[in-house]
């Protein structure tokens, strides 16, 4: 692997939150490399620091010690260069903006011109199957459609790196399966690097080519599992032996981190 293909490089990273009850070790000694085109999932129980690690990559939290590079820059430089798109747990669309102008929001902030904004909005809404819903307001759409709009908003920035923090956590299983499949197609189509936080084993196994198993107190990486599933997948792969085997490895990894009984 040459340096150019390394998107994220984390070395010995720790993060401590000081609280009135003493320090909380949110992350301890994290080493991780993510390459161009990877689909990486962070999985673990609540409190294992998976969201915190994603937020450190996005420069929404700052590491206490250790080093981290995003596209060869510090996270702050990467954020100011708009190197990534971030999808939150909730859609957090602005209710006073239509779906189209919500997707246009980051583009307006980047200072793009009207025509460029219009064509990007149209393109990305079509990508998440929301063409024709641009004039609706967020509160007129279902939760799944809102989350798709927020993905379109992250994609509109045209980042090579997509950071997703349990984006489908609040959705029901049917919608979640559907969006998982769409996300995988999107990833295959665009060759972006995706970092995806989840606490669902099937979701992590289905989506990723690299699964980072984390454990809590202190938040650390338990194991990094490379997926041997074919790149072309659909939902039926979840019944295959290879899928179940991989899911079991993830489950064993979580158990080894003494965290499995706490997820129950």
């Amino acid at each position, binding site marked *: 692997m040459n340096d150019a293909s390394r998107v994220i490089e984390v070395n010995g990273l720790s993060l401590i939150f000081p609280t009135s009850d003493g320090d909380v070790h949110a992350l301890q000694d994290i080493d991780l490399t993510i390459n161009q085109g990877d689909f990486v999932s962070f999985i673990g129980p609540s409190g294992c620091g998976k969201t915190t690690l994603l937020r450190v990559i*996005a*420069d*929404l939290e700052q590491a206490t010690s250790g080093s981290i590079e995003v596209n060869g820059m510090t996270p702050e430089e990467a*954020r*100011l*260069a*708009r190197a*990534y*798109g*971030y999808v*939150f*747990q*909730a859609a*957090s669309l*602005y*209710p*006073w903006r239509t779906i189209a102008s919500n997707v246009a*929001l*980051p583009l*307006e*902030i*980047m200072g793009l011109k009207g025509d460029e904004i219009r064509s990007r909005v149209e393109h990305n809404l079509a990508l998440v199957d929301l063409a024709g819903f641009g004039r609706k*307001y967020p*509160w007129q759409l279902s939760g799944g459609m809102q989350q798709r709009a927020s993905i379109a908003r992250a994609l509109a*920035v045209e980042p090579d790196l997509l950071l997703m923090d349990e984006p489908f956590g609040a959705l029901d299983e049917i919608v979640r399966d559907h969006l998982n499949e769409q996300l995988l197609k999107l990833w295959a189509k665009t060759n972006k690097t995706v970092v995806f936080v989840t606490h669902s084993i099937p979701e992590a196994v289905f989506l990723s080519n690299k699964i980072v198993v984390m454990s809590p107190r202190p938040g650390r990486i338990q194991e990094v599992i490379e997926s041997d599933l074919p790149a072309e997948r659909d939902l039926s792969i979840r019944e295959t032996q290879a899928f179940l085997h991989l899911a079991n490895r993830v489950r064993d990894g979580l158990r080894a981190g003494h965290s499995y009984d706490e997820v129950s």
Partner: protein
Amino acid sequence: MAESVNLHVITGEPQAARPYRFRAMERFLFGGAGMLALLGLLLQAPWQISLATLAVALIAFLQLKRSRLLAAIATGAMALVAANSLIDLVDQPEAINAGFWCLVAAAWLLAWGCVDQLSAIKTLSRSYRTVLNVLIPVLFGLWLLILWELLTRGLNVPQVLLPAPSQIGQRFMESRAILWMDFKQTFLRAVLIGYAIGCGAGFIVAILIDRSPFLQRGLLPIGNLVSALPIVGVAPIMVMWFGFDWPSKAAVVIIMTFFPMLVNTVSGLSAAQPMQHDLMKTYAASYWQSLFKLRIPEALPFIFNALKINSTLAMIGAIVAEFFGTPTLGMGFRISTEVGRMNVDMVWAEIAVAALAGSLFYGLVALLERIFTFWHPSVRS
């Protein structure tokens, strides 16, 4: 009864519509109106009005099963006709007897029944509903005035205590020129200018406070202090500072409106969720970008709340401030001098102007609120 129901089941014929069950309110209103009309007839009230009222109450009672609208129109019209004839009679002392008051009560119950029927109409048509939403409060207010008119004149209430609405209306029409001048002085100058400066300053200071923690600690408590200043104490001082004319009144209005705007804007600016701030941060948005694109829109419901509170505070402030020295002009000045001259009808005319202007002002702000915060859960549902 049970037999016929069974028969319907067997033959499969459509079952007859369930008999209409009158609400207790309907029995009370139309029954009461009919009884009172009958009582009025016995107690020597004019027989034409008594009979007509009785008849209409009965017809409405039978009709409302089929059409509430027709029942409402019939009772509403009859109530107005009765009110009109009663007002014609009210100045003849020999006509005022127990029967007369029975008819007043009967007409009032009919009108109440009319509004009650209109309120009970269920419709999906939006324009129909809009008409009803306007009509119901108008009828309600009209009847308040009619009863006021009949009671003050029928019971010979002294004019100084409470003049009749017709008297106030007459005075209003005769003094239009004076009222307009007072309105211009108090509302168009002191209130509007003071309101604009007070609200604008509150908003700008809120933004300054937001930018600087030093101001937040130092200025917010002082703003609190300003809001606690008694207007009665401040107004004379403002007159000494800014003279007798409207600027001193505008200054009082500024002091009154500044703080509600400041506090509401400050809390509105912190209303955005942490996730939305994070979102702006991931876009590398500048302070001003996230202020204009996220925080001010998020603060709008709070800001409009302050604008509505201030619209009434500004009226009160400007009128009361004029009690402490003005040129011979202005709504507060007129109220204080005409009370001294026992011209209570003029005072009421000024009160009417103030009430109208205040409600229109408030209504306009509320309308703007609906336009600008259409997305807020409290407006869109």
